[in-house]
Structure formats: C-alpha cells, structure tokens
C-alpha cells in the first residue's frame, strides 16, 4: 500500500522517483533536506542540505519556503524562489533540479474530512484508459485534452480548454480521479474507507470499477479424446475488479489450477476471458500485462537471484524504463526489497530454501508490473513469517489497482488480505468442477457456515456426505450474478 492513514489535519505526500512518503506538518518549522539533521530527510544527493522549509503559519495556515536554487512550481506555475505563504488543499509543489533530471513532488492536503487518503499509481498507458490523455505521434510525450461528453477536467487546478503537454508535476482532476504525473506514472488519490459509513467491500468496489474489470466466462474445459473425452470444469461466469485480491479455494482435484490456467490461457477452455473488453490472450501476448507464478518453479536454478530478476525485467519492462539505468536498477532493488530477497541478490537460486525460491518466482513476475497477477500455490514450502511478507507484498500490488488471484493450501494465513473468494467444487453428479461460491469472505463464511477457509476446504473434501455438490447447487439456487455474493 502506498499511502498511510493519518488523523492530522495537514500533511504532504512526497513522491520521488523511488519513494512515496507522507510528511505530517505539525510544527511551525520543518526542514526538508538530505542531511540527517533535516526534519524530513530525503536521501538524494541532488537535494542538498536544505531544500525547503514547511510549517504552520501564525494565521493557522501552512506555508512553503524554498531554501535552495531548485526550480519550484506550484500547480504547474513557475514560482522562482518565491515562497508560498498560504497553501491550499491539494496544492501540488514540484521541485526540479537545475538540469531538470531530478524531481520531488509534494502534494498538500489539509481537508480534515478527507484526511484518510490512500494512494495508488498507474503507468501512463494504464491511466490512458480512464483519463483523457494520449501519446503524440512520436510516442514521446503525453497530452491531455478536454472532453466534450464528460464532466469538467481540471489541469493544475484550472479548467482544461485546450490540449496540453503533460509534465512532471502536472495535476489532474477528472471525474473521480485526482492525481499528479511523474515521468512514468500517474499517482492518484483513492478515497479511503471512512470509519463508520461504508464497508470495506463497498469502498473497494467504488475504487475498482473505474479501473478495469476481468470478465471470466468459462463454458467448458474439456480434456481427453474420443471415449476418454470429459468435461473437467464448466459454467464459471464472474467479474473481478481492479484492486481486488481474490482467493481461489477448492477441494483436491476440483479444478482450481485448471480454472486459473484457463483464465490465463495456459489451458484452452470454451468461453471468453476479457479485461476491459479486451481478450486476455491478446493482452498476454502483446503487453506483458499478466503475471503468472505457476506451481512449479520456473526460474532457472543455475543462475543468481539478481541476474534472474534483472533478465526477467529486461524481458518484461518497456523500453522507456530499460533506457533509464537508474530507474531500471531502482525497480530491481525495490522488487528484491519487497520480496525480502535483498540479502540473497548474489546467491545461486539452487542454494536457496524452497520458500526463497518461491519468492524469486514471484519477484520475476512482479518486476513486469502486471495488471493481472495470478499465483498458483506461491506459499508452498514457505514458513509463516516469509508467507506474511509475501502476502503483504501481494496486498500492496492489489492496492496499486491490480487484480491478484491466488490459490493456496493455507488460506487462513493471509485471511485479512483477501477481498473476495472463489470456491470451485467438484459436482459429483456431473463429475466436473463448478463454481460453488463467489463473493466477499464474510459472505463465504455465512454461506458455508464456517469461519475458516481451511475448514471450508475440509468440508469440500468430505467424500462421505458429498457436500461439495450440495454447495454447488445451493450457490446456483441463490442466482448471485456476475458480482457474486456481496
């Protein structure tokens, strides 16, 4: 998760090329610089000892004062060395080095009603799906243009009337999205869950419906030929939205991996799988939009961890990032960091433990920044502590607006991290896997009458009572629709 919830009434969200942090403004004077003596230390050489001073003014407002020769922009307007005596809510300060190669963005918030803010980011290409932005003919620069049929778009807090070039620090308010551009990303505020008025699931949906929907329509997955031909999975029609982390549960041999493989295109099934109305097959082939960690290790064990991740990045990342060695290395280090592999960067993969190997597999897929992330038992052989690290990382990925779907045999370990649950059960009458539940985890507990995912698996595996067929029938009788039980 990029953002942190705060109770304070004023703060800056600070975005640099490898860091996102929240700065509370609770004093009269806070210095921003790269020295250890700075109140807010940004560890960048170019920033210098004292980049700026921020604080609460006598009138109760908040000020910003530049303390260096850096170029300062307020909401896209060049300020020179001027100070900003009174900051307004959602003011955006861009601080850019003299050679224009380095930058820091400070996004100011003072509105107490919206203090709890979660942030997410999308690559510019992904943002193009929800904002009126497009790339020029040379594929070099992004532009934003006014929309006739949609609501008002504010660019740097001004109504947008013409097509305008997007720069670092350009802010946009369009529909539900308020955010700022960096060279590669659009960082945007996601309304956070108010404590009492809205349930997490409702808020999650509000966030995600605008971004993207994975529509799964599997009619049948058939295996075998002639007399051996049989259907092993059928009739799964559901929608999953961006920002959701979905657990796939099921009894042994029910078809969990078959389901996941069919969604990805690893196994052919009749029906259609689309993301925002685009066939998933097309997305997979053309844009590396899918990350998949299969059951078996797929990284070569005769290589070092750092090399394997670096090669995966070279295969998956766009040219713009590969051409920028600093950004490329930052991503490698970031990935190693969040997967807890920094210490193992120079280790041979064959010498790692089972859990560490799994994390290398996850890292090799995560580095590609996929929109949809599928994991088939990524926690096999992983101890609880390592599993917790991995689950937290996966939750962060979902919070960035991605879809994370995962199969696990220890679902209760990460119980708090999942938004929704898909349960595949074997319908004994038809001898194939069918949907026995789709919906929120709370509804799953109500539906199965069990407060534990592992107990649900046990119930599905209970051969004596054939409960799995009963669950399939029960779920179908509820006619829950594509969104499942909410």
């Amino acid at each position: 998760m990029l953002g942190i919830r705060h109770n304070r009434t004023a703060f800056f969200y600070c975005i640099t090329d490898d860091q996102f942090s929240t700065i509370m403004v609770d004093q009269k004077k806070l210095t921003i610089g790269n020295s250890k003596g700075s109140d807010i230390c940004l560890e960048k050489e170019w920033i210098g000892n004292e980049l700026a001073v921020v604080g609460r003014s006598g009138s109760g407002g908040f000020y910003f004062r530049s303390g260096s020769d850096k170029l300062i922009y307020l909401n896209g307007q060049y300020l020179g060395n001027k100070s900003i005596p009174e900051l307004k809510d959602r003011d955006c300060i861009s601080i850019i080095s003299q050679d224009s190669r380095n930058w820091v963005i400070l996004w100011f918030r003072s509105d107490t009603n919206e203090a709890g803010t979660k942030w997410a980011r999308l690559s510019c290409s992904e943002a193009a799906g929800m904002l009126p932005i497009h790339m020029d003919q040379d594929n070099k620069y992004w532009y934003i243009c006014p929309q006739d049929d949609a609501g008002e778009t504010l660019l740097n807090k001004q109504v947008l009337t013409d097509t305008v070039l997007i720069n670092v620090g350009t802010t946009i308010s369009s529909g539900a999205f308020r955010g700022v551009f960096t060279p590669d990303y659009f960082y945007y505020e996601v309304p956070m869950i108010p404590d009492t008025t809205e349930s997490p699931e409702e808020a999650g949906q509000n966030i995600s419906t605008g971004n993207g929907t994975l529509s799964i329509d599997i009619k049948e997955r058939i295996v075998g030929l002639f007399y051996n031909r049989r259907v092993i999975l059928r009739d799964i029609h559901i929608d999953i939205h961006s920002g959701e982390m979905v657990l796939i549960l099921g009894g042994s041999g029910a078809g969990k991996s078959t389901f996941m493989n069919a969604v990805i295109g690893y196994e052919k099934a009749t029906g259609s799988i689309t993301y925002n109305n685009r066939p998933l097959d097309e997305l997979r082939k053309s844009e590396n939009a899918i990350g998949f960690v299969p059951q078996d290790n797929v990284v070569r064990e005769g290589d070092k961890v750092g090399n394997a991740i670096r090669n995966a990045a070279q295969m998956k990342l766009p040219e713009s990032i590969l051409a920028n060695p600093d950004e490329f290395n930052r991503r490698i280090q970031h990935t190693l960091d969040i997967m807890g592999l920094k210490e193992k960067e120079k280790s041979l993969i064959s010498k790692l433990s089972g859990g560490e190997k799994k994390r290398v597999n996850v890292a090799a897929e995560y580095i590609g920044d996929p929109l949809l992330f599928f994991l088939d038992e990524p926690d096999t052989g992983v101890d609880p502590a390592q599993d917790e690290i991995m689950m937290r990382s996966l939750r962060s990925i979902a919070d960035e607006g991605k879809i994370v779907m995962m199969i696990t045999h220890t679902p209760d370990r990460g119980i708090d991290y999942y938004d929704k649950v898909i349960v595949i059960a074997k319908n004994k009458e038809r001898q194939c896997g069918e949907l026995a539940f789709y919906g929120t985890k709370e509804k799953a507990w109500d539906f199965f009458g069990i407060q534990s995912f592992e107990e649900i698996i046990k119930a599905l595996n209970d051969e004596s009572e054939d409960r799995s067929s009963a669950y399939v029938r029960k779920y179908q009788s509820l006619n829950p629709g594509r969104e499942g039980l909410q």
Partner: protein
Amino acid sequence: MNMTPWLRQFKIYAGKIFRQCIFEYKWTVLISTFVIDVLLLMVLNRDKMFIDYMDTRTGLFAIACACIWIGLFNSVQSVCSERGTVKHEHMMSGLSLSAYICSHLIYELFICALEALITELLMLLYFKEAVQNSIFSPFDLYVSLLLLTFASDACGILISSISKTPEMAMTIMPFVLIVQLIMSGFIFELKGIAKVISFLTISKWGMRTLCVCCKINQYPPEEIRSYEYAIYHQNIAEYNTGGARIVLLWFVLLILLAAFSGLSVLALRLVDKDKR
C-alpha cells in the same frame, strides 16, 4: 506493444546459458571429452593410423562416432530440462523461440570449439610421427571436427526440443546414435531406401569430411580382404580430394546444422500445448 527485440532476447538467454555453464560446472563436459578421446586413441593402432588406408579409415570412423557422441551428449538435455520454464516464458514474456535456440547454439558452438580443439590436439600428439609424414592441413582437420561435433550438437538440441522430459530425450538418443552408425555407409554397403536415409545422417557426411580432409587416398592399402573390395573402390571415389571438395562437405554439414536448428524451433512451438 512491449515485445522484447530478438537481439536483446538472444543476448539475455546467451548470457544466462554461459552463466549456468560456470555456476553449474557444465564446463566439466570438456573433461569427459578428454577422457573419451584418450580411451579412443588408446585402442587405435598407432603404427598404422595415417599410414595404412584401412586402419586410417577405421580410426577416422571411430573419431567421427566419438564426435557425434560428444556433440549429442552436450545438448540432448539442454532444452527439455527447462521445458516448463520455456513454456512459461514463451506464453507470458513473449520469448522468441528462435532467439532461445540461437542462444543455445552460440553456447554450444563455444563448447564444441573447445572440444574439437581437445580432440585435435590429442590426435596430433598421439600420432605425431605419422601426422608429420602426412600432407593434410591441421586447420582443415579442426574445422571438420568442429563442424561434425557442432552438427551433432544441433541434432541433440533437436532431440531435446522434441522431448518433453530428459528421460524421453535419453530414450530417443540411442536410436539416433544407432541410425548414425548403421546408416553411415561405413559398415555396410547401403542400397535402396537405406542409401537415401544415409544422405540425412551426420555420420556419412562427417566421415567423408574427415577422410577427405585427411586425404585418406594418399595411404596405400597394405591388405584388403575380399569383402572389402567393393567398399574400398566406392570410397576411393567418395574420398577424392579434388577441387574444393572439403569446402563442399563442410557446407553439407552446415546445411544439416541449419536444418536441425530450424526443426528445433518448429518442434519447440508445440511447447504451448504441453499439459501439466
């Protein structure tokens, strides 16, 4: 589109394979090459090799077989042992199968170059006196040994690309070897369909290349048994060194090499259909 360019993929995978060679001690194949060559030279007749026609011919056949064995063994498990990874990378990361096979080939070329060097140096040392009295070029012999080993290596890559598991590859390999032996035209005089098949074997062209390169017709036969007459007279024509014949034979080996490589890429396309 975010497809990684072919050349970058080639570099990535070549780098990966060379690193694996170091980290997984795959260079130890050079030791096995040395051992095979030493064992082979021990059984060859030192007094008659590169002196008598029939002994030289038998010796060169044994060396050709050793090169085929070494080449096949170099690569027969190289692709199938990571087939699951190849499927994953092909489907999820847009891996170019031709770049992948070419990266294997460049690594195998490097290994084969060292192996051919080991084989030639041992031959030249062991048959030092006879070689000094002969008139063949050591460079021609090196190129011939290299191409023979490398073509066999490419054949190993093809077997590996067809096979779904290393076990399957190791089962197929003996069949390929036996075909190379019996269809070489060295042991039996081939007729009909067998003769046609022999044109597709590395052993036939490899054997011819070695014999032509060593100018085998310069060595007079001491004694030819009656049943060897026909094959001897046939060979006299086949091993003729006139013109640029050796270059032509190298070219044939290169065609075989290219064919095995192309077929490997085609065979590997089926990787997407692999089941769990």
